[in-house]
Structures are given as C-alpha cells and as structure tokens.
C-alpha cells in the first residue's frame, strides 16, 4: 500500500490526474495557433471537431468505434509499460491479428454457428498478436534485443506480409480475375460479423423509459460489440495487474528487475509474458477491426489504412490514462473523438485532418515531459518518509514512494 501518499499535500493528488488534461489543453492551444496561421478560425474549427465527434448519435457511435482499437491496444500498453517493456509494435500486432481472423473466417465452413465462429476468430486474432509480440519479448529476454527496435521491424514485416497475402493467397477469387486486382478478400460470411449493439441499447433505453416504444435511437448506427468487449477487458486487465500474483510480478519486474530477481521472480519469463499479452490485445484489436468494421481485410493504402495508426495512438491513450486500464477508457474515447472529429474538420474548415496527428504527437510530448514534476515530487516524498517510522528499511520506502 502506498502509505506515503497520505502525507502528500492534497493539492498534488488533485493535480496529478490533471496533468494529461493540461497536456491536451496545451496541445490544443498550439493547434489553435496553427489554425490561425492557416487562416482558419480556431473556435469554428474546434466546434467542427467537437460536432464531428459528438454532434449526433452517428457521430458518437463513430467515436466509440474508433475508440475500440485504441482502448484494446492501450490496455495492452498498460501491461507492457508496467512490466518495463516498451511495445511500439501495436501496428504489426494488429495487422497479424486481423490476418488471422480473416484467414480463419475464410477457412471455416459456412455452417459454423455464429457464436463459435466469433469466438474462434477472436481467439485466433489474440493468438496471432500474442505470437508477434512474444517474438519481440523472447528476443528481448533471451538475446537482449531492444524491444523498441524489434517491434518496429516486426511492424514493417507484418505490413509486407499482409500485402503479400492479400495479393496472393487471400485475395477474393473474383477480384483476382479483374484487371484492377484490388488486393482484398471477399466480404466475410455474415456469421463472422460482430453483432451490432444498437438494438440492445435501444431496448435498455426503453426499459429505462428514456425513449418511446417505437423510437430508434442507436439501432440505426454501426456501433458493434467491440467497445463492450474492450471495456470488459479493460476491467479484467485492471484486476489482473493489481489483484493477481502474476500481475503483481509483472509490475514488480517493471519497477525493479534486479530486486524482482532476488525475490525469486523469473524476470525473463515475465518480460516475455508482458509482451505476449500486450501483443495479444493489439491482435484482438485487429481482429475486431475486421469483424466489426470492415468485414474484410484489404491491403489498399498499406498498413496505416487498416490500423488507422491505432498501434501508436493506443500508446498515447494509455499514457494519457496514466498507464491505468480504467483511465485508458476515457482517454481512448477522447482520442477516438479527435480522430473522428478530424474528418469533419477537413470537410467543414478545409484543414487537413493531419492536424490531428500533429496534436496527438504534441500530447505525447507534453505528457512525457510533465513526468519530470511527478518524479521530483516522488523524491520529495521519499525524503519525507525517511523521517518517518525507523523500523522499516529505507529501500522499501523508496520503492513504495516510486509508485
């Protein structure tokens, strides 16, 4: 338990979670200056951004759909970063996850029951992502290969693999005969569609008496089961990291690998495990993109067109959520909103949606830069606790204070 925080001035506890918010505000401020330089009115532009993201039920649904992969990648990032492993391979892990789900869906007999079909494909995408992440984990643990570099290389390998498979093995037989040869699969059979949850939501709304019996509120949107799955998994990851022994060990290894080794934890194994799980969740994000949104896999536009850069943006969401799975939920919605709103920004104010990428980059920079203050305070905390009860060795206090 982090006793030391009780001695903190209350103000700090208030400000801490607000740091990412300040970072975003700062990024939006820089964005406003950029908009002014581009002769666009920042207020109009940001209003368009907001309306694009939350202005209608379709917009909200879109935002949640975009938030889903960010959340899944993000909670994976929570695991790996807490385990002291920097996984920047979300892009590649999503792609192999998507490929696995697609390939399996094309192979399974049409008569497979929908529930089984969904379950198998989701499991396949998780497994594929886990393998892709696990490779980097094993390379780090047993060959000391820097995981940042290996995951980046694995991203590129996954992209080319995807292009190859979609041009050859997996290509829709009909399209293969056409001159244009669009590198994409056929539409997957319907039983591989993640169920839409609009009607369920409407039933809930009616039950709560929020809408009339014949109103359709969410039923017309494309909102699918993915977001529900992602939120459940976020809670599961929270329980895993903070309420199970394995989760505790992952965090211990991330905090202090040497101390963990002395405590008898097999550090290497946990390094692999954290990348495995992190990759698996990203792979699942890829599978859900296929089964919930696109219903086919396409290599058109390369890797980014499939992932929407979620492999990187998920890192931002996780950092923004303080590397806490529950905090990552609202963070993902926020960044999903930025991405969806960016499209409206482009349509209405003629500002390229690349602005959003710039803003996200700035948010990361501001968030990690503000860590310095947090660390400085953590150290002050150590100094305070060292004057505390003398019966505890100072090391354990320092470890706790670093939390």
């Amino acid at each position: 338990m982090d006793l030391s925080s009780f001695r903190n001035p209350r103000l700090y506890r208030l400000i801490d979670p607000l740091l990412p918010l300040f970072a975003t505000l700062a990024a939006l401020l820089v964005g406003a200056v950029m908009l002014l330089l581009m002769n666009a009115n920042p207020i109009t532009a940001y209003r368009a951004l907001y309306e694009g993201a939350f202005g209608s039920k379709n917009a909200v649904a879109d935002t949640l759909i975009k938030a889903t992969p960010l959340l899944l990648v993000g909670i994976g990032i929570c695991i790996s970063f807490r385990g002291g492993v920097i996984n920047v391979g979300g892009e590649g892990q999503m792609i192999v996850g998507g490929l696995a789900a697609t390939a399996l869906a094309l192979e399974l007999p049409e008569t497979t029951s929908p529930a089984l079909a969904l379950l198998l494909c989701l499991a396949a995408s998780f497994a594929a992502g886990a393998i892709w992440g696990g490779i980097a984990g094993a390379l780090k643990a047993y060959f000391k290969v820097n995981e940042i570099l290996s995951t980046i290389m694995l991203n590129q390998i996954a992209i080319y693999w995807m292009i190859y498979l979609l041009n050859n093995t997996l290509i829709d037989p009909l399209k293969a005969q056409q001159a244009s040869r669009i590198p994409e699969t056929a539409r997957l059979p319907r039983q591989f569609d993640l169920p839409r949850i609009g009607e369920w939501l409407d039933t809930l709304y009616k039950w709560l008496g929020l809408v009339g019996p014949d109103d359709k509120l969410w039923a017309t949107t494309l909102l699918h089961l993915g977001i529900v799955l992602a939120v459940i998994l976020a809670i599961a990851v929270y329980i895993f990291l903070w309420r199970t022994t394995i989760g505790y060990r992952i965090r211990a290894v991330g905090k202090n690998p040497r101390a963990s080794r002395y405590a008898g934890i097999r550090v290497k194994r946990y390094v692999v495990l954290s990348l495995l799980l992190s990759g698996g969740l990203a792979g699942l994000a890829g599978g859900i993109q296929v089964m919930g949104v696109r219903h086919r896999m396409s290599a058109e536009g390369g890797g980014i067109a499939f992932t929407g850069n979620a492999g990187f943006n998920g890192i931002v969401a996780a950092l923004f959520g303080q590397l806490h799975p529950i905090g990552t939920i609202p963070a993902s919605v926020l960044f999903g909103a930025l991405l969806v709103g960016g499209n409206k920004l482009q349509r209405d104010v003629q500002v390229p949606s690349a602005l959003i990428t710039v803003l996200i980059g700035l948010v990361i920079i501001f968030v990690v830069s503000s860590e310095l203050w947090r660390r400085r305070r953590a150290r002050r905390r150590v100094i305070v606790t060292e004057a505390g009860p003398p019966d505890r060795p100072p090391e354990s206090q320092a470890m706790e204070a670093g939390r």
Partner: protein
Amino acid sequence: MIGDLLNATVLIGIASSGIQLATPYLYASIGEMFGQRSGVLNLGVEGMMLMGAFTAFYTVHNTGSLVLGVLAALMIGALMGLAMAVISVTLQAEQGISGIGIYLFGLGMSDLLFQKSFSQIVTVRGFPTIRIPLLSEIPVIGEVFFEHNLLVYVAFALVPLAWFVLNKTTLGLKIRAVGQNPQAADTMGISVARVRYFTVTLGGMLASMAGASLSIALLNVFQQNMTAGQGFIAVALVYFGSWRPGGVLIGALLFSTVNALQLWVRTKGIDIPAEYASMAPYLLTILALVFASKRVDQPAALSKPFERGD
C-alpha cells in the same frame, strides 16, 4: 532469370543504386550515432526526416535554389533536434516515447504543410549528378562510385569525419565520456547537458538532411510519409554498426544494397514475391540486433536521463 543478376550492367546498376540508397541512412544514422554516443536515444528521426524532406522540397520549389533548400532543411532539423534535446535532456522525459511523439508530430506536420501548399504532386529540379573527372572514367568503379549527386558524396565524406571527431578530438572524448559515465564526466567539469544538447541538435540537422537527400536529390518529389520507416531503420543501423561510424557505413550499405536488389527483383517480376524481398532488410536488422547485443559497446548511459545527484 536469376542468371540475369550475373550480368555486369545489372550488377553495376544495383551497386550504384545501393550507394545512392545508402545516402539517407548515412545522414540519419551518423547523426543518431552522435546522440546515442552521448547517451540520448532519439526515436524521432523519422519525423525529423519528413520535416526536412518537406522543408527542402518546399524551399527548392519556391526559390529554385538548392543551397537555400539545404539551409532550410538544416535549420528545421536544428529546431526539431533542439526540441528533442529540451524534452530528453532538460525535462528528462522517457526517450523512446517522446521520440514517438516527435515522429507523429513530424508525420502530421509535413503532411499538413504539404496539403496546404501543394494541390498535387509536383517535382523539383534536384541536385544534378556530378561526374568526378578522371575517377569516373575508371571502368566499373567509376560508374558505381563517382557518378552521383553532391549529397551522396557529402554523406560518405561524413563517415571518416564522424570517426575523426569522435575519436581524435576533445569534443569526441567529451561525447563518449558523457555517454559512458555522465557522473564522472560531470565531476570532471564537463557539462553533460551542453554536450547532449549539441549532439541531439546535430542529430536533428543530419536527420533533416537525410530527408532532404530524398526530396531534393534522390526522388525530387515530396509525398506524405515518403520516408516509410527509413528513419526507424536508421536508428537500428546505429545498433547494427555498434555505435561506430565504420560499422554504420557497413550496415547502411548492406541495407541499401539489399534494398536495391529488392527493387530490381520487383521490376523483373521474378518468382520470388516482391513482398518477401521487401521484408528482407527488416529481418536482417533483427538478426543484426541479435548479434549486436552480444557485444558490450553500447554506451552505458544510453537513454538514461542525467540528473545531478545531491
């Protein structure tokens, strides 16, 4: 068809284009190497390359002056390097993550500026090929090594220069000291922060030049995300070359030659799928990293922020 490869003209073509393709890697990796030798891992190279590529392209397109293009690229690179230095040295941020931030910033910003200033893809008149008199007359060697544009020659000249600076000057000694043992360097009166500011800013300028070498010398166009991961490879090449200019050179050449070979395979439509050929450099890098890790010459303080102890 593989037999075609043994044809002299094909071999010369591949070797020559390998030399050209090595250019951006050399600029970026040498710059990154200086940063890493002083203990800073700059993962934002890709973003800096994109900004440099755009700035150089834009300047050359509007002024027609290649000198101005290079100067503009150097300036924007210095600015981005300085920003990275502030983040990683003064604010002591996690370097891997802040690098991703810089990357996304550069990716978005160069795209944004490009879309705002050009309505379609245009080309510029880039650096012309300079045939070095006499040397280019030598058969084979002349064609491979001495018929390139100015930026290619400069890139290769950087390698011995970097070696000299690192190993034979006081500055180089300071850089290595700061990267190996910042505490000791600090005690000796070397300003760790100042040295790192210098190397990271230099790294930014060279990364930016790497981008410029694509947009105003090699390809003479700008497209969004035109570097397509080369900046990240440049970072890996520093590990590959075990933090030495000569090693980086070998890595860059190996990588670019495989790339040139891959491009050739692609045009021939040979039965090796082009995508597998494209994967080769990345697989090679991973393998290289496995072997590089066996060595112990990684700067001890790499990616660890330095703060004076009390």
